[in-house]
């Protein structure tokens, strides 16, 4: 035994024991694991929350020294980024200027023209300031931050932003810092505005940069209330020289004293900027996350055969994520601080650690024998995969260790995280995931157990709650023929992908939610990033807590108390910019008259709001300013020096002197266009724009909808008639189309279950177990003829019972008048017509007869050898009248209303009896055995071919109900019949096949043809006149056509196809009964065959296989296995093959490729009958109902219930007539269902 094998065994044993442990104590282990996860994640609390907002740190100015690069241990409160020199020192000169006293002769432009004009002299002053001391002469040039080229993308700003020199920005930059240009500028506002970005912009604009204060605070506006202009001159310094700056400050203060200024000048603010996350970085990041999610999706999709897939997938993801968190937490605990961007490396870490082991574990555990105990299953599964898991872990550790030796710090750190993550992941897999898995498996077994036990043993009895005394009653149906739309089991259906996506979206309201969440996020972002919003507020809050903000509120003093009218508080309520025309009025009224416009002198006040100019600014202005020169502030910081306040008072003369000649012409419209109005106007504009955008969006969506969902929605190019509203699928998402009027027409009359059903489109023949054959009009549902099994007719006293039941007592009050040979049986045709929905009346049937099983038709005493048709109807003793009386007594009055007057048939009675139905019977010479049952029946023209179990073939006249001919050449029972033109093919129980020819005594050319029945595929069937003598001759008998009984016989396109239990299908030519092919391919008896005019041949067998054959060559086109159990029914359309099986599955196959398109799982015990109404409409029989399906998508269109007591009575046979009606058997009744939309289509 090698070391490897021993190791392997040991590992396997250890895993086995571990699995036992986990499965034995699941809850304590899960608790323990959760506790350890939390413990390991605890150090993460110390880590700062991720965010990109700038961080502010304040120090004093006096003892300022450039921080060292090395971290100083003793200074605890210093942030980590506060190391080394800043990128720049920012010195701002905050200028507040006003023209005072305000004169009414001044125009609004004067508010800001001369104050801004003063910036040039200030700039001059600053630039020329020189500080001289012992160490030399210092000027701004030597200290300031020298910048070079602007970024290539900013050529348009070239004239404005400084290049190749000091980074010094001020409003003067608009005019290239040249006074002449400023003086020549006729429209200052236009100059300022032309550099504003168009449209919505949340980052800083050039105006903010140059003015250095928020747009609202500059006062550069024609509608300024305060008439105070504020701007800053911003100087970026590369080195800090306190003496030079001190002298500059002193000089400016001396020149322009700010008397009441309380701004503190002893604090320096350092602003640290986090790494930028721009779109450029976001795209790769998002990509990696998308790949990560795809990976997780594809991985967890493989989890199968468990109780809760989602739960296990969640557990797997939790395992990986918490192992990562644990890894970071542990690393932090041991002193390693993560320097990598967590968000960036996270996906890679997840991918490296992977979900593979978890999946392998699940698969292994699931594939253990189910009958084992849960504990043992877990243990076995673990130990089976132990070796591969260990190998995997070792390999990954090895790879990561190799990575560790690349000696690249970033990769080393990544590897360290990955190693710790791998180890903790292994730990979690072993403890957390295994335990969760064991819990899940146990749950699954419990569920299995519940299912296996009887319901009362496994499930607790539902307690009848006080609120719901009973189970909810089924929805009431006002009549048995109401169509109820069944909620289709969409889960079982295979809808097209597009529809499924749409349904999914609709079900989860995904789009709405995404839009909602998006809106909320967007608003949140707006609020947060808005310059006047939350962010600045938070920053202000933070800085108020810092020592900088503790200065308290300085007294709010007016600067120039020269003008007594200038109450600082009243300035707010006074409208500015009086129009010149009302000046005299102003003069006359004086300045203190209430409610009148008073020229107010501007006040310059220094408040706390000016304390920190940077606070009012979007802090991103610094990164954007520096980024213009390709200097990044990411992960670096700048130091903002205390501002130098400058107050300028300008006289009106100066303001007038500096006027541009056009300024007076550019007066604003004198109508008091208040800011409110302007705001209103903007509001209107915005509202109009928004409205327009909304309308556009709606139109766009509408167009999209039209493009995506064309009018023939869901038709998929199949040339199918338009779909009516009623045919739309009713789905489980709340949309239910209006109920269309599909009402089944119940044809009652048979006393026992219907055995055979045949139709030629116009007529409908049915035969019940009792042997009674009835002929119906397929259009109206009238009963035309009754051919009773005459042997039963004479069955002593029970005959009356039989017919009592056979005929509806309500509509046929004279049951005893009916004789077996009565061809005019349905003489009361009007009644048959008038009350097709007799079903409604059945409840009125007396209870007297309800309990008794209706077995009378089976009682056959066979007293006489004579055919009963030759017997007078009154031959036997009939209790009919007696029974009738009983009926009459018990009938409730409402049903009597429907009873036709009993006198009407009375005069007919004798005529019925006297009717000469005893025409020379072709079969009269020999006694026929009437007791044999009908096994097969076909209907062509007006001839019914009935094959009996005795081997006799009878031909009946469908209209007159007379036996036209019978053939007794065979002795073996006829199992199947095919009637094609004038040929009848009969398959017999012994496997032989007989070909008969129907001949009349007239030449065939004289045969009348009935109206062409609809479809061209069927040849018109000849109509045999009643006077013709019909002869049925056996032309050929193929003995031993099959070795075993023939089960199916189909004839079409000149071919006869037989399927037998000997696993073969044979194809015969109809004309000469020559066997063309013997098709072998099934491994079970043939149960169903389909052949149509296009020579499509499909066969299904007991082996669940479906074969498609080429009838011309006899070769097998395709062979698919679709069902567990017999294939019970097969139908083809031009594009697909539909099969149903004993496994209650309906499969739809592509006819050309033989690939299963989808399958429909039906309820258990559903009938196997199938029919295709049109190219895309399938009808299936179910328990007491028929269902219509859309073949293109597998949607359940509608379910039509045939009656109230739908339980237990399945639709076994289903015929699709040419007028798109469906006939199906429903116990002892026939049901005729019209499909209106298809009818319309055919029209």
């Amino acid at each position, binding site marked *: 035994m090698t070391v490897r094998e021993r190791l392997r065994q040991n590992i396997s044993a250890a895993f086995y024991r571990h699995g036992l442990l986990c499965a034995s104590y699941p809850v304590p282990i899960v608790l323990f694991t959760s506790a350890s996860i939390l413990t390991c994640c605890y150090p993460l609390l110390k880590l700062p929350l991720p965010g990109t907002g700038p961080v502010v740190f304040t120090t004093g100015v006096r003892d300022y020294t450039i921080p060292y690069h090395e971290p100083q241990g003793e200074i605890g409160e210093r942030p980590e980024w506060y190391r080394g020199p800043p990128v720049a020192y920012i010195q701002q000169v905050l200028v507040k200027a006003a023209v005072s006293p305000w004169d009414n002769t001044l125009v609004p432009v004067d508010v800001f023209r001369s104050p801004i004009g003063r910036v040039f002299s200030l700039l001059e002053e600053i630039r020329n300031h020189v500080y001289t001391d012992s160490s030399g002469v210092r000027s701004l040039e030597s200290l300031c931050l020298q910048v070079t080229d602007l970024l290539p993308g900013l050529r348009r700003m070239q004239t404005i932003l400084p290049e190749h020199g000091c980074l010094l920005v001020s409003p003067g930059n608009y005019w290239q810092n040249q006074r002449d240009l400023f003086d020549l500028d006729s429209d200052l506002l236009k100059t300022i505005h032309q550099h504003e970005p168009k449209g919505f912009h949340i980052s800083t604009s050039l105006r903010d940069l140059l003015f250095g204060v928020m747009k609202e605070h500059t006062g550069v506006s024609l509608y300024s209330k305060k008439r105070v202009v504020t701007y800053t001159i911003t100087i970026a310094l590369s080195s800090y020289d306190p003496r030079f700056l001190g002298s500059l400050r002193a000089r400016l203060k001396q020149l322009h004293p700010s008397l009441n200024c309380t701004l503190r000048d002893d604090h320096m603010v350092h602003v640290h900027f986090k790494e930028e996350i721009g779109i450029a970085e976001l795209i790769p990041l998002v990509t990696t996350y998308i790949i990560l999610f*795809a990976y997780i999706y594809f991985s967890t999709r493989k989890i199968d055969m468990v109780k809760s897939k989602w739960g296990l997938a969640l557990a797997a993801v939790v395992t990986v994520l918490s192992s990562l968190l644990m890894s970071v937490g542990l690393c932090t605990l041991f002193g390693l601080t993560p320097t990598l961007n967590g968000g960036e490396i996270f996906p890679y870490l997840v991918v490296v650690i992977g979900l593979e082991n978890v999946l392998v574990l699940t698969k292994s555990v699931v594939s253990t024998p189910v009958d084992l105990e849960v504990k043992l299953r877990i243990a076995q599964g673990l130990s089976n995969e132990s070796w591969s898991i260990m190998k995997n872990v070792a390999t990954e550790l090895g790879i990561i260790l190799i990575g560790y030796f690349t000696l690249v710090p970033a990769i080393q750190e990544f590897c360290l995280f990955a190693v710790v993550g791998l180890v903790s992941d292994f730990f979690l897999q072993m403890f957390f995931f295994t335990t969760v898995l064991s819990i899940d498996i146990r749950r699954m077994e419990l569920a299995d157990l519940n299912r296996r036990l009887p319901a009362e043993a496994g499930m607790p009895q539902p307690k009848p709650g006080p609120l719901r005394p009973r189970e909810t009653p089924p929805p009431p149906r006002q009549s048995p023929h109401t169509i109820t739309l069944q909620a289709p089991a969409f889960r079982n259906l295979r809808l097209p992908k597009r529809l499924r996506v749409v349904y999914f979206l609709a079900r989860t309201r995904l789009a709405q939610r995404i839009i909602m969440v998006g809106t909320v996020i967007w608003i949140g972002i707006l609020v947060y990033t808005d310059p006047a919003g939350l962010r600045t507020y938070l920053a202000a809050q933070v800085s108020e807590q810092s020592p900088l903000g503790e200065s308290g509120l300085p007294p709010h003093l007016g600067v120039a108390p020269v003008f007594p009218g200038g109450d600082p508080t009243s300035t707010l309520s006074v409208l500015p910019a009086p129009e010149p025309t009302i000046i005299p009025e102003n003069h006359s009224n004086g300045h203190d008259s209430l409610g009148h416009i008073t020229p107010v002198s501007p006040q310059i006040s220094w408040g706390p709001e000016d304390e920190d100019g940077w606070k009012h600014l979007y802090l991103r202005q610094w990164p954007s300013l520096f980024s213009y020169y390709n200097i990044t502030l990411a992960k670096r910081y700048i130091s903002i020096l205390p501002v130098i306040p400058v107050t300028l008072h300008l006289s009106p003369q100066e303001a007038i002197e500096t006027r541009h000649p056009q300024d007076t012409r550019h007066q604003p419209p004198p109508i008091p266009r208040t800011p409110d109005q302007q705001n209103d106007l903007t509001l209107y504009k915005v509202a109009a724009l928004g409205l327009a955008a909304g309308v556009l969006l709606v139109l766009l969506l509408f167009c999209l909808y039209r493009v995506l969902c064309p009018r023939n929605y869901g038709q998929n190019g199949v040339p199918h008639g338009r779909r009516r509203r009623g045919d739309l699928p009713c789905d489980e998402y709340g949309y239910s189309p209006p109920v269309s009027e599909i009402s089944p027409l119940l044809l009652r009359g048979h006393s026992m279950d219907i055995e055979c059903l045949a139709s030629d489109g116009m007529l409908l023949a049915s035969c019940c177990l009792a042997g009674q054959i009835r002929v119906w009009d397929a259009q109206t549902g009238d009963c035309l003829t009754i051919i009773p099994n005459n042997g039963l007719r004479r069955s002593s006293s029970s005959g009356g019972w039989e017919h009592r039941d056979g005929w509806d007592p309500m509509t046929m009050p004279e049951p005893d008048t009916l004789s077996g040979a009565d061809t005019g049986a349905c003489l009361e045709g009007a009644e048959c017509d008038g009350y097709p929905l007799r079903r409604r009346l059945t409840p009125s049937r007396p209870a007297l007869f309800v309990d008794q099983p209706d077995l009378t038709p089976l009682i056959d005493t066979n007293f006489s050898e004579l055919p009963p048709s030759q017997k007078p109807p009154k031959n036997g003793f009939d209790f009919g009248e007696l029974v009738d009386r009983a009926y009459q007594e018990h009938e409730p009055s409402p049903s009597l209303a429907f009873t036709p007057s009993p006198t009407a048939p009375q005069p007919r009675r004798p005529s019925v009896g006297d009717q000469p139905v005893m025409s020379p019977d072709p079969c009269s010479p020999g006694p026929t055995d009437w007791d044999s049952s009908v096994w097969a029946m076909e209907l062509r023209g007006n001839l019914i071919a009935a094959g009996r179990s005795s081997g006799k073939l009878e031909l009946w006249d469908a209209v007159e109900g007379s036996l036209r001919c019978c053939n007794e050449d065979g002795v073996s029972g006829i199992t199947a019949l095919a009637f094609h033109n004038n040929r009848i093919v009969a398959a017999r129980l012994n496997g032989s096949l007989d070909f008969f020819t129907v001949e009349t005594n007239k030449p065939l050319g004289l045969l009348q043809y009935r109206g062409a029945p609809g479809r061209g595929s069927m040849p018109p069937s000849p109509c045999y006149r009643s006077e013709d003598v019909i002869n049925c001759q056996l032309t050929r008998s193929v003995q031993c056509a099959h070795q075993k009984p023939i089960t199916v016989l189909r004839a079409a396109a000149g071919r006869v196809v037989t399927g037998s239990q000997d696993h073969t299908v044979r194809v015969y030519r109809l004309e000469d009964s020559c066997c063309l092919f013997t098709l072998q391919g099934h491994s079970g008896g043939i149960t169903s065959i389909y052949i149509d005019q296009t020579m499509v041949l499909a066969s299904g067998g007991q082996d669940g296989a479906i074969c498609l054959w080429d009838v011309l060559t006899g070769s097998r086109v395709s062979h698919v296995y679709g069902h567990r159990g017999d294939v019970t029914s097969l139908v083809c359309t031009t594009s697909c093959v539909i099969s149903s099986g004993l496994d209650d599955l309906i499969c739809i196959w592509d006819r050309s490729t033989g690939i299963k398109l989808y399958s429909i799982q039906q309820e258990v015990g559903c009938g196997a009958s199938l029919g295709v109404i049109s190219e895309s409409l399938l009808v299936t029989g179910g328990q007491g109902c028929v269902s219509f399906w859309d073949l293109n998508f597998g949607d359940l269109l509608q379910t039509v219930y045939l009656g109230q007591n739908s339980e237990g009575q399945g639709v076994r046979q289903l015929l699709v007539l040419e007028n798109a009606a469906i006939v199906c058997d429903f116990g002892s009744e026939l049901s005729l269902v019209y499909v209106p939309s298809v009818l319309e289509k055919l029209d």
Partner: protein
Amino acid sequence: HTWNSSVSQVGPYIAVITNRTTNVVIRGTMLFSVGVFLALVLNLLQVQRNVTLFPPDVLSSVFSSAWWVPPCCGSASALIGLLYPCIDHCLGEPHKLKREWSSVMRCVAVFVGINHASAKVDFANNVQLSLTLAALSIGLWWTFDRSRSGFGLGVGIALLATLVTQLLVYNGVFQYTSPDFLYIRSWLPCIFFAGVITIGNIGRQLALYECKVVQEKIHQD
């Protein structure tokens, strides 16, 4: 009215899938789009290395490099992705290792990660960069491919692509934005190799679907 003729126009989706030519076209298109997408994203990663902060018009920088680079990458990836299954087929040694989409996703993620590392991590010198990337690429191959044909094709195409790029640069058709010429030359072959392995993996996975369908067809026949 034979069976075949009457059913020729039906089953659009399945028929398309089974049609070999259409299948190849579909796969090629998918691979092409994957290639274009990866080229754009990875180009963005590389651009980031040189320019940390973007001027306001960020997105234009995505397309700032020559316009023909992404289509070239797309075509190359389509070619490679179709070539790999072909070679597997020709050599008769079908790729067996971890043929599932999760593995392919993992592979793509590692490939992007290698690019990320080459773009973001500061290496001491170019030799170190080359060695690290080579180790990572070979690790990628070992983890997700492990086939000789894959390795051979990867190395061959990587060398060829590097050569073509160098020729383009020497002829002045294309220029590196980075001033450090050696830097780019040191990572280029490794990235190419990893990319070939990744695209080959995707191509094989896509081809698997066709194989399944064809096998089913054979089974039916």
